[in-house]
Structure formats: C-alpha cells, structure tokens
C-alpha cells in the first residue's frame, strides 16, 4: 500500500566544471512511496522553482530503465541500493520515513561535472568509436540465416549486449575503470561469428581508447558487477582479457 514519507536530501550542487561544488540540504516532504526516485526529485524541483531557487539539474529521459541517461550516487551507491535497478526504477517504497539521502553525481576523472548531478559521459562514446562495431556498410549484409549462431551463444551475447551505457560501473569502481562497459561490447561481438573477423583489432583498440580517456584498470573489486543495473557479469571482463591477450600475443594487429 502507498503511504507518505518525509526525507532529508543532501544534494551536490555545482555550477559547472570550474566550480568547486558543495552539498545543500533540502527537505523532501509528503513523498508517496509509489513515486520513483526521479519523481521525488521532480517534486523537490517544483518546490524550488516556486521558491525562486534554481532546481537541481539531473539527467533522465526514458524513465523505464533502458536509455541509460539517469544515474546518481545515492548514499554512496550508484543508482541506489537496490540490485539490478536504474535510478528511475528505484521507488520510494524502499526508503523509510525520516531517512537522510546523500545524492551526488557519478564521480570519475573521465566524467567532468556539467552541472549539479549531470556529468559528461561522452568518453564512453569515444571508446565505442574505437571499435565497438562490426564494419558492415548498409547493403553489404548476406542473408540473415547464412551464419547460424548456437542459441546459448546468442543468449550470452544478449546478456552482454544488455548494457545500457549508464556508466555506473565506472562510478562505483575504486579505479574508475570502464572494464565492464568495454568488456560487454567486446564480448557481445566476440561471441557472434559476425564479429570474429575484427575481434583482435577491436579488443586492442577499445582498451587503448579506454586508457586514453582516463579510465583506470580493473583490479577485481567487482563493485561494477554489484552495481550494474542490467546485472552484466564480470565473466565478460575475463573474456575481454582473453581476447586482449590473444590479440596482443598472437594476432598481426598492433
């Protein structure tokens, strides 16, 4: 059943990348437990607007857990405490009356803050540009059933492909590593026969781009896996490592 709770929010405010930033405290009153976390922020923002204050900037779009736009740290956890959930799918029924919530942006060297809770995650696009694709021009494709893909392989490729690119893995990693993100794409394409021709080049190039963007390396903390809203497994990181070493030692690519 729905009920109403009162919360205290400690929210990070920052005017831009050059600003030092600070926490502000705002009450969130009469919050229905049926609301989503973002709807709770909407309510606070409506109030701030009417009080002639600037609303809190936060990113969101689809609000159904698939676009990967939303995401902040809530009490130190990316997307909040609930497993396998984006922030937009976190509902207030998981909080108790009187709770204090500390809300911060995703923090990483590769994610400069744009404003308040909004960060620039374009580094993730740059990593994909380095090879997160199969080189097939429109019109080049053979008939779709030409290459059969065993069902379990297709399923594992889909498990990896479920990544929504929210970047929470980076925010929760002590090294701010993007290994889970990179490995999800490398795995998806490595598991499919269509992706094999470029597998070696892809692994080397995407890892190189990840380093160049300022993401750290993986040291097996597994925080990424724990926080991933799509529950992408670190098995993919192991596969990325295998693909990477294979490419580095055996392939002609460099």
């Amino acid at each position, binding site marked *: 059943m729905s009920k109403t709770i009162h919360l205290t929010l400690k929210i990070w405010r920052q005017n831009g990348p050059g600003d030092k930033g600070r926490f502000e405290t705002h009450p969130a009153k009469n919050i229905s437990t049926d609301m989503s976390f973002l*709807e709770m922020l*909407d309510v606070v923002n409506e109030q701030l607007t009417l009080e002639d204050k*600037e609303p809190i900037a936060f990113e969101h779009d689809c609000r*159904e857990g698939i676009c990967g736009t939303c995401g902040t740290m809530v009490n130190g956890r990316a997307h909040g405490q609930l497993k396998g959930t984006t922030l937009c799918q976190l509902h207030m029924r998981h909080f108790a009356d009187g709770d204090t919530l500390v809300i911060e942006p995703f923090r990483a060297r590769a994610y400069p803050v744009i404003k308040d809770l909004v960060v620039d995650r374009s580094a993730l696009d740059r990593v994909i540009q380095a090879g997160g*694709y199969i080189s097939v021009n429109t019109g080049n494709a053979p008939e*779709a059933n030409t290459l059969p893909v065993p069902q379990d392989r*297709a399923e594992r490729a889909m498990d990896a492909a479920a990544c929504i690119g929210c970047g929470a893995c980076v925010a929760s990693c002590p090294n701010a590593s993007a290994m889970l993100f990179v490995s999800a794409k490398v795995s998806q394409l490595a598991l499919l026969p269509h992706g094999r021709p470029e597998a070696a080049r892809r692994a080397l190039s995407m890892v190189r781009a990840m380093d160049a963007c300022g993401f750290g390396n993986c040291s097996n903390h597994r925080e990424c896996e724990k926080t991933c809203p799509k529950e992408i497994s670190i098995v993919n990181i192991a596969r990325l490592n295998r693909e990477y070493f294979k490419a580095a030692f055996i392939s002609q690519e460099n």
Partner: protein
Amino acid sequence: MRLDAKIPAGPLPQKWDRHRFELKLVNPANKRKYDIIVVGTGLAGASASASLAELGYNVKTFCIQDSPRRAHSIAAQGGINAAKNYPNDGDSIWRLFYDTVKGGDFRAREANVYRLAQVSNWIIDQCVAQGVPFAREYGGLLANRSFGGAQLSRTFYARGQTGQQLLLGAYSALMRQVASGKVRMFPRREMLDLVVINGQARGIVARNLVSGEIERHEGHAVVLCTGGYGNVYYLSTNAKACNVTATFRAYKRGACFGNPCFTQIHPTCIPVHGTYQSKLTLMSESLRNDGRVWVPKTPGDQRKPSQIPEAERDYFLERKYPSFGNLVPRDVASRNAKEQCDQGKGVGDTGLAVFLDFSDAIKRDGRAVIEKKYGNLFQMYEKITGEDPYATPMMIYPAVHYTMGGLWVDYNLMSTIDGLYVLGEANFSDHGANRLGASALMQGLADGYFVIPYTIGGYLAGSHFAEVKNDHSAFTDSVKEVQERVTKLLAVRGRRTVDDFHRQLGLVMWDHCGMARTNEGLTTARARIQELRAEFWQNVRVPGTGRDFNQSLEKAGRVADFMEFAELLILDALARQESCGGHFNDAYQTEENEARRDDANFCHAAAWEFTGEGKDPVLHKEPLVFENVHLTQRSYK
C-alpha cells in the same frame, strides 16, 4: 499549394525498383561536396547518418541527449516485422503490405507501405550482420513470434529489448562513421529552427544545451528524424525529452503537417497511480500472446482477482473477437478496455485498469517458459507496482504511445519544403490511422537504411544550389527570433511551473482528444488550450538564465510548442468527420461500436499548411488511391 506524392507509375511490386532506376545518381567523387544535416539519432536518424556517410556524403548529426545511443527508439520492446516467412506460415511481402494497410484502417499510401514491406527483409539481414543478438532457435537460426494485429509469426526480437539492440546496432554504425570523420556528431543540441533559403532547406539553428549558445549549421539538405509528439498528452510512454519542436518549427517554415489527429493509444501500459506521475510505462504487447485480458462481469466487483471465479470473469477480447482474441490491433484493444471501464467494470484503486492474466499460460507452459519469454517485463512490472505478476494478474490500461501523424512527405520522404526530408515516426507516411505492433522499428530503419540513401541523391543531383554560408541573412534572422523567444520565456517570471502547465494541457488532450472524441469535446478543448496558452505566456516561471545548462528552459520551449501544436491536432480531429483507427469520433461507429470510416469523403491524407501567427492553418488533401487492396470494414472477429 498542390500536394504531389510523386508515386511512381507502374504495377505496385515494381514501383520502387523503377523509381530507383529513374532517380539521378551523384557520382562517388561528388558526394563529398554535399553536406547533409541529420537531426535526431533514433533508429531513423542513426541509420540514415551512417548510411549517408558510408556513401561519402559529409554528415552533421544532432541529438538532444548526451549520447546518440539514448534516443527513445531504445525503449521499444517487442520486435521488428519482416516478411521472411521463415516459419513457413504463409507470409509474403504482399501479406505484410496488406496487413499494414488494413491495420492502418486504409489511411496510408499503398506505394509507401509496399516499399516498406519490400525492404523489411534487408533490414533483418543488415542488423544481424551488425551483431544484433536476435533470439534464435536451438539450431542457431533466427526465431520469430506473433504480435498484435497479425495472425502469423513474422516478428524478430531480442528478448524484450529489441529497440535497444537495433538502436545500438545503428548507433555502432554511426560511431564507426564518426571515427572515420564522415560524420560530425553534435550531442546535447536542440534544433530550434529550420533555415530555408530560396525555397530550399539549407540549415538549422540549434541551441547548445550546455553553453546556451545559439548555433548555426548550414548544409545542402536537412533530414529530420525527431520522433513523435505523444508528449502533447503529458503522460505517455515517450521519454521525457520527446517533443514536437523540430517538426513544428519546420511546419512554421512551410512544411505541411500530415494527419496530426492520428495518435496511437497502446493497450498494455501500467495504469496511472498518482498526480505526481511523470510518465507511463509500456508493457510490451507481446504479453498479449500469452496473457488473457479480462474484467469481472459485474460492475463494481471489488474482490481480489483470485477470488473471482471463472464463470464471473469476462474475457472480453476473446468473446468479441474470436479469431484474433487477445491479439486484436492496438486501437481495438484500447477502445475495448476503455469501454469496459466506462461500464464500471474496471479494476484496481482507480477503476481505470483491466487484468492481464498469465495464470493459464503458466499452468500450460510452466513458469520457466513464461519467465524466459517475458522475465524482464515481469520484473519491470514488479519494480514499478510492487506486485508479483507470476502470482497475481497484471493490471493494465491504455496510454498514449505513438503518433502516426507527422510532417507530410512524398514518396521520396521529402516534405513540402525542397530538401527537407522527414524519416521515422516524425513523418506521417506508412501507418495510416493505426500502427501495427513491431512496425515502428521496421519503418524507422527502412527509411534510414534503404530509402533516404537513394532518394536524397536524386534531389542533390537534380537541384541547383546557391552558395550559402551561415552568415546569410536567413540565419541571422532566425537566430534573432530564437534568441528573442528564449529571452521572452525567461522574462515572464510568473507563478506556475512549466510542468504544471504541461500537465494541465495533457489532461485537456486526454479527456477530449484521447481514445474517443466528440465534436463538442474537441471544441471545448480548443477553447481551453487557447486560454491555457495565453496564461502560459503571462504566468509561467522559468528559473535560471539562457546562458548555461538550464533544463527548465528546455522544457519551457517544448511546452510552448506543444501548446500551439495541440490546437492543430484538435483542428485535424474536428475536420475528420469519420472514425478510423486511432481517431475515434463517437458519432461515427458501427452497431458493434467499431470505427466507421467514411471513404466517400475522407479517404485522404490531411496536410495542414501554416499561414501565419494567429491565423487558422489551411487544409490540403492528398487523395488516397487504392488500386491493389479492397477497402473493407476492418474486422478482427
């Protein structure tokens, strides 16, 4: 203005081949001399950008999100149709064409729809080659499933995330072209005006959403792939940033708006639960393959579903439509749910919901099978409602989902402005008055991968272009107008928030221009919208400045356009004195409460021309000629 759809002559199956032959070509060395602007990076925009860049054009691509991968196509769940006939169940290009024309209640252009069905198979080939992990059978070949509005299995899917996987495929092709330098990507930009010079679309004016700077971008053609306008209803399954601004600004520059009253209300959404609600969530209609829709037979029955015996349940879709059952098209399913709720048989706290029950399917196939098919959807439902759909029936209610209307385009997908192309949901072309499930993904990708690469070449090769730089007076004037509007929005400093206005607009639209419309209601709505718009410009409060990242300002501009556009939608609904597909006027229904078309008077596409601020737009009609299908009363019994 005379509308010319430019439908090629000849028999239907040969039109597209013949047209492709007749289109002029741009030789490979000359392609690099042309700059093409693509706005939007959903399925249509990403696929168009990548395909045009692969051909050698210089492409500048814009999106409002932080990354092109986030466009709302990503949220499409169920699947994509193609006429592969892999299941050997009687499918063909002709049947996909026929189903789509009939599903659209005979208000789409035959030639466009036939082409869509023809290229559908290439789309699957292309996506598989890109690494889209479609569902497969044990033998490793592609799997198909059935979907609302079809009696055979022609839908390809990637769990409940087909839109995501197709979009990421198109996005990866786009990223490859960005890496090659053929596409320049401009994320976090919102197109606020179209620049037309000598009658040709030559550029756009966009706001940089981070710095607030108003930018000018010139090109030889502009391709709008900016999606639909469902958010005019405030609550819809669209993402929060979906808006009508780009297409509406183009309309104000001379592009006719086609069939704005054709809106799709999707039957399987999670019901509204509070006034703070910011959006509605769709549950893929693939659920109707195994879920049974029912309400209690007695109005006002407050018992829990488990306590209502079988004999006291009304499986109303199975009862009324025995041959299609729960798989009737969306408009029919939605209207029937509303009808049951209007009779007091709705369930849940608000009485605005019907059950979607999986208990029979779980009994028949076992929980594991159902979990494999719909696991992520069930999980999503539980997250939002806190109820377990394996144990108790889901509650669903229709919600605004898709808009068949959009900018009018000819067979080449060009609007009434030379060089302005419109693709995907943003155009009006292929779905008539109602879209069938798994057809939106098909259309977006058909337009982007397989139509625009050919047709834009014909235009570029056959047109003369004056040299245009971005300091041209048309750009300067447009920037000035855009800037003034921003300043005006910030200067009102009233007492109501943007969302508050948007919510009220949405309620007016939903109440009077939703699943069932009346002339009286529409007239009332028009007056209410005019009042609301006047109040908006007197009393809206937009905090902050125009010189930085300001989400309130972004929303305010979009809502201001929705306020004007809503009236156009109403006018179109008033002008169309018939019922067809998603446009249901209470005055025009059969004895069995189905939509009654008036083919003698309304077998046309409506195209509205802007004639100036404060003036009524002018209606142009493109007659729809059906040479290959026989117009019938749609029946799913």
